[in-house]
Structure formats: C-alpha cells, structure tokens
C-alpha cells in the first residue's frame, strides 16, 4: 500500500508536468515532427556527403561472424554496395546497385528497401524463417556526434553496425583485396584450429570457427564474431581483458621475428598460434591427418619429378588423383591405460582398370628442432598395379616417390603467417620446396 501511494504521487507529479498548459514556453524550438524530420534530413545529408562512400562493419546479429561492406549513398536514392565474402558474393569481388531511404515514420531508420544480393541475403529468412538472422533496416543512433562515424542498430535483431567515412584516396578494389590478403594470412581454411589468446595476464584457448572464436568465459562457452578490414580484426563484443571488466575489441596484425600476432593497440592483449609449423605438421593431430601435395609453388625439380611419375602412370592407363603425407594414430587400451601408436606414410590414390585404388608407402618420421625427417620403411601391395605402370620393379617405383618426398624438411607457413598453418612449405637445405595443404584434419 505504501508503494502504491508512492506510485500515485509519482503519477500526479508526472501529470502536473505533462498536463496541457498553453501558456508554458516550449521546451524545443520545433515540434516533435519537425525535429524528427530535421534529424532524418541531417542523416540523409551526412550519408550522401561522402564522395568515396562508407565502410560498414556489419554483424547480422550480436556476436555473429561479421562482414565489411563499402557503400556509397547517392542523393537520388540509389546505393552502390561492394563486398567480397563467402556468404553473399561467393568470394568474388562484387558491386551492386539498389535503393536506400531514410524512414522517419517511428524513429529515424536507414532502410535498404530494394533487394541487394550482397546485403539482403543476411536478412533473408530462407526456408526456416530465420536464415542468417540479419537486418536490412537500421535505427540511427548517432548522426550528429562525429561527422566521420555513424552507429546504427538493426531494427529486428538489434546488432550494432558501425559505419566510417572512407578517405577519398581509398581504392575500393584494393580495400577488398587487402581484406582477402589478411584473411588468407590468418583464417582461411582454419576452422577448428586452436589459438592462444593472451588477455594481458594469462593464456586462454580460442577455437576458430568460421568468422568467430569459441572460448570459455565465466565457465560458459562464448561465441565472439569479428570482422576483418585492412586495418585489422574488429570484434562485436570483444574478448575479456585481464582486468575482467573491459574487452579487447580491435586488433592489428603484427609480424614479429618468429611469429605473427593479432595485437591490441596497447599491445597488452594478443591472439597467436598455439603451434609451430613443425608441431602442427607432425604432432598435434590426435587422430588422423593428411597433407596433400600441391604442385603450385613447389620447387621446379619436385614438380618435374612428380609430373614424370604422373605422366608414366597415365601413359600406361593409370591416373594418379592425389599424393599426400598421412599420419594415423591407433589407440589401444591395455590394462586400463591408453596406448597410442603413430604411423606415417605417403598416401597415393589412383585410378586403374576402371577401379579406384589407394595405398601407402610407409615412412619413418623423426622430428627435431623444428625439422622433420621422412625415410622409407615399406609399401602396401595395393600400390603394385601402379608401380608396374611407372617402373620396371617395385623398388624402382618406390624410389621415384621417396626421391621426391623423403628427406629432412623445415615446415613454414605457406599463407604468410604463423596464424595460418593449414598450408605449409616443406623446405630442405638443398632448395627443395614441397607445398602441402591440410586435406582432412580431425582434431
């Protein structure tokens, strides 16, 4: 009852404030309608007054994987959107025109109200009514505070969207290609890879998952989506810092002497690879992995040697599909204890007599000081039909493969940073370079 009385008093107070008294002076110079229209006009003018357009950092919903767009708003209601991503442009650099408008019916809203393949697909409900869970209408939050920056919020899914005015000398094509280069160096094909997050005081494990990191915070698995731009990596919520209060949101790529890191501007927090290239190649798979040989960017002698094998096989009716290093782990439980046996091989798949074959040249492997040594051990009989097509004896055939693929190698990242070890260059002291790509990795 006491509370009810307080509320009644509050109501009466409010009534006294809001009651109609035509003699009172107005709080604002303009009516509510005039104010909202003025705000809409201001926003319209600000968007149009960007000769080279805007960079839009778009998260379909909070902490989803995000995407960068370049957008130019024209005064006639047209908008040009450019992007390169795997969701809406098939990873091809594309630009597309559509329409935009400011809607001031309720609040001031930026709407992309005709279909634009690059943007609309994120809001498309698809068959399940949900789709990517994104928006095509955005509530303007700050049109006035910063002339070069706009913050908006998705009308339905409420993800914040940041737009920054692009400098006039930014080349759109180069901007998107720079993102692509950064993506290649860091996260391309890197799904499921564990990385380290140093929060400034301690280490945490992050697992990369298609534009997001999964990690434990407050004993719960958290998802943290981010966007790559030429300036670095930008999170939606960010990763918790050592103070347990603030979040690291923006990171830049830093190439240090022996590793590549994504670092915050103050350098206190960073993300780096959990493995060295040799570790990643040799040891860190717990079950099964295969690294496929890639001719491109292997050295000329290796390419010639492998091509000679392929040509010999083809000349005698066999087609070699793949060659790759393979590592298998056999787990046995003996007296309650788990015992793991590792075996290594060169796996070769080929087509002969209308049938698909696969077989292994088994290898011994040693690992020391970031170097890996492969040496011949034995071969499987399923390779004999192939051997008969490429050499006079199985021993001679095996030698063709071991000459090309055995030796002592120092693995390096092919992608240009230790953050992305999904493709490697195996280099030896004599100038041999074998390009391999992780084909099947079960962590």
């Amino acid at each position: 009852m006491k509370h009810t009385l307080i509320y009644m008093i509050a109501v009466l107070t409010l009534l006294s404030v809001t009651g109609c008294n035509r003699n009172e002076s107005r709080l604002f110079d303009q009516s509510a309608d005039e104010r909202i229209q003025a705000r809409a006009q201001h926003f319209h003018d600000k968007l149009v007054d960007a000769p080279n357009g805007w960079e839009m950092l778009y998260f379909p919903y909070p902490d989803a994987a995000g995407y960068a767009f370049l957008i130019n708003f024209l005064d006639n209601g047209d908008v040009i959107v450019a992007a390169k991503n795997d969701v809406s442009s098939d990873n091809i650099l594309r630009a597309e025109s559509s329409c935009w408008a400011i809607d001031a019916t309720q609040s001031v809203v930026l709407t992309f109200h005709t279909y634009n393949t690059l943007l609309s697909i994120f809001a498309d409900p698809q068959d399940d009514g949900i789709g990517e869970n994104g928006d095509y209408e955005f509530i303007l939050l700050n049109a006035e505070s910063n002339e070069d920056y706009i913050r908006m919020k998705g009308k339905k899914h409420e993800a914040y969207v940041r737009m920054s005015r692009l400098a006039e000398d930014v080349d759109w094509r180069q901007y998107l290609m720079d993102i692509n280069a950064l993506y290649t160096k860091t996260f391309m094909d890197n799904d499921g890879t564990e990385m380290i997050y140093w929060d400034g005081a301690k280490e945490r494990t992050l697992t990369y998952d298609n534009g997001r990191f999964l990690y434990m915070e407050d004993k719960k698995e958290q998802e943290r989506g981010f966007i790559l731009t030429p300036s670095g990596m930008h999170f939606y919520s960010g990763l918790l810092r050592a103070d347990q209060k603030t979040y690291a949101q923006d990171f830049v790529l830093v190439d240090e002497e022996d590793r590549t890191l994504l670092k915050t501007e103050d350098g206190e927090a960073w993300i780096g690879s959990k493995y060295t290239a040799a570790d990643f190649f040799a040891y860190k798979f717990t079950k099964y992995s295969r690294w496929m040989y890639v001719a491109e960017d292997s050295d000329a002698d290796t390419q010639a040697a492998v091509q000679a094998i392929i040509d010999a096989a083809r000349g005698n009716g066999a087609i070699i599909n793949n060659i790759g290093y393979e590592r298998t782990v056999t787990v046995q439980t003996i007296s309650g204890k788990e015992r793991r046996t590792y075996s290594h091989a060169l796996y070769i798949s080929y087509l002969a007599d209308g049938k698909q074959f696969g077989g292994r040249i088994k290898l011994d492997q040693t690992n020391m000081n970031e170097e890996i040594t492969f040496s011949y051990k034995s071969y499987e009989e399923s390779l004999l039909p192939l051997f008969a097509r490429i050499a006079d004896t199985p021993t001679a055939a095996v030698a063709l493969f071991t000459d090309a693929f055995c030796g002592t190698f120092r693995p390096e990242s092919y992608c240009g940073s230790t953050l992305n070890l999904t493709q490697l260059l195996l280099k030896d002291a004599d100038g041999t370079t074998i390009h391999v790509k992780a084909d099947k990795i079960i962590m």
Partner: protein
Amino acid sequence: MNIKHIVLAGAIMLGFTACKEKLSPNSIYDDIPPYDETSYTYEFDKYLYETYVLGYNIAFQYKLNDVSTDMDYNLVPVRFDKAQEVAHTVKYLFLDVYDKQMGKDFLRQYTPRILNIIGSPAVNASQGTETLGVAEGGIKITLYKMNEFDMYNMAWMNKYIFHTMHHEFSHILHQTKTFPKDYERISAGLYDSQSWQSHTDKEAYRLGFVTPYSMSEAHEDFVEVISSYITDTRETWKDRGFIMAEDHTHIEFVDEDQEGTSIINSKITMCKEWLLDKYNYQLDSIRAEVQRRQDALTYDIVMNDSYGK
C-alpha cells in the same frame, strides 16, 4: 501486470496524449517526384506510375517498408528483376483481363489500392507455417515469396498471386453489394471456422467445397469458388478429381462422390448469376480470357505488353 506497471504505463500514456502538438502537415519529402530520372529504377518506376497509379489508381509497392508489413516475420525486399516480372504479369493476367471484360472504371473502383510484394516467404518459424499472402480490408494485398516468382510455372503463380488477388477482389465485390443469402444455405451446417485446416482437399471436395479454406465460412467459400473457377486450368481441376467441361461452364466429377460435384456446380452457378446481376460481370468470360492468356503466355508477350498485337 502489477499495479506498479499499470500506474506507470498510465502516466506514460498521459504524458504522450495530454498535449496534442499540432504536427507539421508538410513532409520534407513532398517535393520528391514519384520517380527519379537519374535512378537505376527510373524506367520501372515510371512504368509503375503511368500504368498502375495513373491507369488503375493502384500503388504497386516493391520497395519494402517493414512498418507496412507483419513485424513478426523476417522479410527481405523482392529482387528488382522479379518485381518487374511480377508487375507486368499482374497486368497481363489480372488488370488487362478485367480491363477488357469490364472496363477500366470497374477496376479503378473496386481493386485493392495497394499491391505490396515481398521477396521472401512469410515463415512462422515457431509453428513451421507459411503465409502465402495477406489482404487487409480490401485496401491492400501483400504477396510473399516473390523472389521465387517463375513466369513459366502457372500453378505457382496461381497459388502465390492470382488465386489471392481474385479472392480478395471478389470479397470487395460482395461487400459492396448485398451478398446472396441463398448461398449461405447451400452448405449450411458444414462450415467449420475453427478447424477447417484439419480437412484434406479430398474431404473438402466430397463435401462440396473447392478448397479446405472454403469450409471456414460462407463468404470465404463464395470467393474461393470464384477465384478457383477463374484461375485454375483444366489440369488443376483434373488433379482435384474433376473434369472441367469442354465449354468451361461447369465441372464434372470423375472420381467418387456425385453429391460434391453437384454442390460445387450449384455454387458456381450462383456466383455467376450474382455477378451478372449485380455487376454485369460474366464469370465465364473472365475465366475464358484468363485461360487464353495463360496458354499464350511468353516472357516477351508479358514484358512487352504485346498480347494480341
């Protein structure tokens, strides 16, 4: 809602409503013409303005405004190429049909004022259901899923566009003049407003309804008969187990129950008589014109407006 919320809500409402400011009658956009010559949508916007707005007093809306749709759905705009195809096809298979048979004034007077097309389906994710289209008070028709529009799939177009349009148009007609009371007596006692969805097509036919939705109530039944009669091809009727007579004037049942057939035929007859009596509207002529156009449809004819030329 506890008392705290009630009181505060009341206070807030009073705060909003106590002082009615005089809103500016002028929109800042009033001086913008209906289409902009420099826009990439100019040709289409000009077509819509000249054909739909000036021709039929219809606003064909393809630019999506969420406020004007059901906010419960996740939606996206229609693709620009699809919007153009839909606009031309609606003209070809709906507006031109009535224009030829009934004259422009008839359309200007009775068609819904707004045709709103949406690119995505309207999926209710929690229920797993999908809304094909929505009509609001004879004023506005909203059509969903237009990004999947296929001009060469007549069954799809009838399901997602024309059945709804003829259905709603017929509602406007019967709401404008006295509804035939005798019609309500044909299937009296068989209407099931609560659970018509649970009936199969076959059950509906057997009971003398052209669709399960017809079973919801007599007015819906009335307009479903008209729209099905106009749009559905002989093949569609055959799929239902009926044969459309050679002269397209009635149906014959081929599968089972003669009673359902005679009921549907009596409904068709009553619809024809009522439309002729009230509007001088010959249902057979409308159906014949629609069917002729369905048979003659090609992309070029529709998009170039060259039927019969």
